[in-house]
């Protein structure tokens, strides 16, 4: 077994165990911590796919910002130990059916994909990938409109939070 395969299997096991722990953990803070482990596993998957930039952004955005925000909010809002509250609500059968359908659909989609033995093309250096990404984001022929729309959305959220927090 090669080292890459070993790391891949380790990542898969850790990510799945963590993802299951997120939904089964009865303590909200613990669930958030498990969520971070699962997200970190996803970052390792990106590293194994040689997408270093995406992997680092995954850690930076999801663990550094979103997960910390989640933990902080849980810590401050209420008693995170919810042993007296049932873990599921009345809608669990519908949710179970929907997840099963989604899983079966994904599995069907995966098996109908043309199976090829072509190796992934080697990338011409990571540095180029980043500058290509930057060029595509601001190029009028590519993604400049979504990019600008996303920044307007973020600006609106920023101004909205200031308005909400404004001292009357």
């Amino acid at each position: 077994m090669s080292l890459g395969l070993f790391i891949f299997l380790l990542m898969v096991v850790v990510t799945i165990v963590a993802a299951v722990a997120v939904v089964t953990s009865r303590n909200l803070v613990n669930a958030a911590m498990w969520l971070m482990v699962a997200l970190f596993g996803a970052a390792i998957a990106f590293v194994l796919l040689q997408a270093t930039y995406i992997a680092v952004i995954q850690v930076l955005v999801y663990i550094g910002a979103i997960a910390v925000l989640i933990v902080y909010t849980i810590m401050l809002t209420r008693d995170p130990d919810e042993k007296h509250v049932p873990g599921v609500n009345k809608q669990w059968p519908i949710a179970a059916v929907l997840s099963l359908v989604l899983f079966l659909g994904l599995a069907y989609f995966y098996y109908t994909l043309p199976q090829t033995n072509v190796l992934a093309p080697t990338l011409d250096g990571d540095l180029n990938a980043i500058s290509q990404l930057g060029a595509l984001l601001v190029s009028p022929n590519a993604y400049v409109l979504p990019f600008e729309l996303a920044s307007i959305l973020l600006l609106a959220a920023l101004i909205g939070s200031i308005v909400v927090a404004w001292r009357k």
Partner: protein
Amino acid sequence: MADLINVIESWLFNLIVSWGASQGLAQFILQVLGSLLVVVLCFVIVIALIWVERKLAGRIQDRFGPNRAGPYGIFQSFADIIKIFTKEYVTPTGADKGLFNIAPVLAMASVLAIWAVFPFAINVIGADISVGVLYIVAIGSFGILAILMAGWSSNNRFALLGASRSVAMLISYEIPMVISLLIPVLLAKSMKLSAIIDAQRPWWFLIVTPLAALFFLISSMAEIGKAPFDLLEAESELVAGYHTEYSGMKFGMFYVAEFLHQYTVGALVTIFFLGGWTGPMAATWPILGVIYFFTKTFIVYLAISWIRLSLPRIRIDEMLDLNWKFLIPVSFLNLIMVAVADRVLMELDPARWIYVGVMFVLSMALLLMSLIVAGMTKPAVERVEFPSRAVAVSPQSDRSKS
């Protein structure tokens, strides 16, 4: 002799291959050894630094500092290490045991992992990844997580207060820190640490963008969480902040992580603004580069110690004001200014020293202007003058007055 580290590396590689290991396995073993070496080096540096820091603190605060164990007390750290290993681990009632035990490890790891991408010399680089700068920022966020975990899992009010202050401070000071880091990236046109150092070959970025260097230093001092930004472990208010409940080596790990973080910030300032390993003869004699790197780092470390030993702790409103009303707007302006100036000067294509001079003057002018504007605005919280009272007042007379 010139290329000592790589000579040893190739010798070890050949040795392991001659024992019958495959090339890939030998490479892997060498990488593991290299990581271990860096980690051990970090710990050895910290042992020395703790003594230096305490001696320096003593000198600045007009006392002796450690002076019993060995000449000038240089064995004090070893005595402390032995003592800390013999201490009992206390887990408070109601603590979340798993998180409580992981937090110190994570705090330590988040600092050590940053060292993986440092270029120590022209050809001694751990992992020269193309997103080095982003990696440093991303790994740094694990430190915040460790503080949050420690504060919450301790089941202690002071620890939780320290942790919630850490979020208010560390996350908000990350913004000017990242924007200041963007400026070397912009000037070097790469996020690779080796490329950033190459771009500083004749002129350090400290001279090209002194303002970015200053802001990076201030905001990383806040990231370390030591005085004047030590609100998250303010001794006089929060016992010890987020690590109140920790004892023995678990406390030791937080303590060592803090020292190492300060040294790491010194290394980051060195890499981004002081030219990293560059220096006379460093390109031909890589071993000199290693010496330059650690010397520069040590000088920055001492400067940070000097600042933090001289200044009192800032209040929480001052801390927020400094960040949101000064550092963030000015660093955004600085980023825009550097980007435009760099582009315009690239078109004009003047001599390198003119380019550096113009950038320096622009940076200084922006600093001056922003300080003038900041001086004209009123602080959000008015200073209240309390009537002066005697230093020693008997309890009876004090009660009658109030």
